[in-house]
């Protein structure tokens, strides 16, 4: 999700594709050699900085944290290197599904993760992985509209407020650039599924989004909340947890789920099949799923965690400041979940290229 700041480091990958980045030539980070060390890969800023240290203090297991900017980036590395060198990956649910389909994920042994008991029952019935057999949910939430209530007239209520903005909002809205969420906004506005694969509907949404582009300030996956804070943008397409970063700086910023509904996204933890230290990896997941650590994660990153014990321990003041933290799991479950699109992914990619290249 965060693309800008790692652009420079990943430039090396795009240009000098070989020499260490690719399959047979071996993967960058070395395999966990010592038995008491694991390598995890997560988004930058998506986990409290002190967790690895605290984990080591408690278990003696050292955690090396690698960072990825996007789901796609870590998938590229893992698919090419068969997951070697990583023990636990933080990826969004459709990508966890892909890892599972490719046989790159290890089954999760619930006996080694007793803290699954802390999770909401809903978190065990997510349709991409009922029973959490190959993934453990880390954080979850919705995608919706984040806006400046002092700059937008009324309350935005529909995806069309974003896709066909009023004259006052033209040039002051941003949309997410990641293909699945960009397309989802268009699909939802037309009453289609966020996992729609029919080419005709993809084309229909593409035409709408090409029209929408003319009214957009920018596509933005990372700094949309600061555009709201500065007043450059008035209404942005946002993940709820990330809208909270804006709310933290300006309490005129609000979050709303459009009436057409939205997606329920889940960011998960997956143990790689290639992990040589699966016990330590399980211990790490168990540690994250503890009530205390779940609470600390939610407080630190301001995203909802599917951890009942953790969420119930959250301070009421925090929930009052960031109302979307208080969303009930039962309500979230009403939203559709993003699923892997299989071969239709290519059509999405092409549609998004055509949208962003249009004039």
């Amino acid at each position, binding site marked *: 999700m965060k693309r800008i700041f790692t652009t420079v480091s990943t*430039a090396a990958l*795009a240009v000098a*594709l070989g020499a260490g980045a690719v399959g047979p030539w071996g993967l960058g980070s070395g395999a966990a050699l010592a038995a008491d060390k694991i390598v995890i890969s997560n988004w930058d800023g998506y986990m409290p900085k002190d967790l690895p240290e605290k984990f080591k203090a408690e278990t003696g297991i050292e955690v090396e944290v690698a960072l990825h900017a996007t789901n796609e980036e870590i*998938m590229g590395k893992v698919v090419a290197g068969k997951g070697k060198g990583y023990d636990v990956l933080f990826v969004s649910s459709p990508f966890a599904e892909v890892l599972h389909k490719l046989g790159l994920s290890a089954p999760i042994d619930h006996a080694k993760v007793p803290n699954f008991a802390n999770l909401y029952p809903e978190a065990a019935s997510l349709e991409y992985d009922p029973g959490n057999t190959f993934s453990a949910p880390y954080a979850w939430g919705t995608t919706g509209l984040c806006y400046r209530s002092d700059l937008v007239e009324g309350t935005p209520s529909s995806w069309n407020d974003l896709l066909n903005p009023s004259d006052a909002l033209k040039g002051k809205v941003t949309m997410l650039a990641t293909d699945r969420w960009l397309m989802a906004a268009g699909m939802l506005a037309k009453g289609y599924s966020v996992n729609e694969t029919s080419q005709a509907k993809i084309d229909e949404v593409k035409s709408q989004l090409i029209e929408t*582009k003319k009214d957009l300030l920018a*596509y933005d996956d990372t700094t949309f909340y600061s555009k709201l804070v*500065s007043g450059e943008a008035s209404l942005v397409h946002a993940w709820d947890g990330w809208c909270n970063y804006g709310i933290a700086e300006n309490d005129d910023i609000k979050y709303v789920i459009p009436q057409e509904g939205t997606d329920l996204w889940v960011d998960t933890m997956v143990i790689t099949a290639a992990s040589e230290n699966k016990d330590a990896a399980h211990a790490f997941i168990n540690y994250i799923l503890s009530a205390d650590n779940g609470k600390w994660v939610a407080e630190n990153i301001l995203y909802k965690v599917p951890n009942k014990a953790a969420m119930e321990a959250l301070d009421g003041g925090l929930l009052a400041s960031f109302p979307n933290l208080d969303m009930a799991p039962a309500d979230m479950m009403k939203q559709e979940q993003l699923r892997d699109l299989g071969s239709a992914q290519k059509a999405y990619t092409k549609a998004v*290229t055509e949208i962003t290249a249009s004039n």
Partner: protein
Amino acid sequence: MNSQRRSLVLALPGLGWLTVFMIVPCLIVFFFSFFERGVYGGIEYNFGFDNFLRAAEPIYLSIFLGSARIAALATLIAVIIAYPAAYAISLAPKDRQNTYLFLVMLPFWSNYLIRTYAWIVLLNREGLINKALGGAGIITEPLPILYNDFAVITGLVYNYLPFVILAIYASLQRLNPELREASTDLGAPAWVTFLRVTLPLTLPGVAAGAVFVFVLSIGNFITPDLLGGGRIQMVGNLIYDQFLSARDWPFGAALSLILIFIMMLLLFTQAVFVNRAQQARAAPDG
């Protein structure tokens, strides 16, 4: 024989570096470009030319052409700004010239990303320029000067201008002042001397600088991403997306090869051009 061997030894580290980090990666890119993306990314080893055919589809062609247009505009503007600047520096007293050149290079001491991000601070709706113009009563509505072609071209010109100034300055330095004096002695007005003596003889410098800006601009993806707000898609972004979002390495590799080919063609043309100019210059002397 001995000096040849010495040259070889001296060149070895450079050659080794180029082989490992340039030639081998290029060969890997070349190799990948003939295969297919698997359903979930990765590479399926079915040989074919599909990626190159796909690159010729209208949507990708239009991205190539659009990038060339932006790079060409950036090049043109950079040359127009750089020539007088280089000329002014070359006319300055000798002891000041190095200071001026140092100032030209100074921005390179800061990070490319930060320099580019600074433009967002300047150009955005609530940014310095709009606030200043609004405050002075010159405009009532903020100017839309960010997240469009204008911003991207501005960013590219700003970042690559020093290279053009240096290239043109170098060729002005090499120019024998006696040629200009001779032209003046023979009664040519200053502008005729410039157009018929100075400019033609410094064209190789202009060409070197221009090719540099063009090549760096057409493959750039950070500037269009940041200053274009994701609304401007250049070849660099397209390639970036193939590797980091579409997970279509083979297609990305094919696009990279095409881009490398365009760049090599330009550099080659420029080399031929410079060569010819040098020969032409050398001819009258003997």
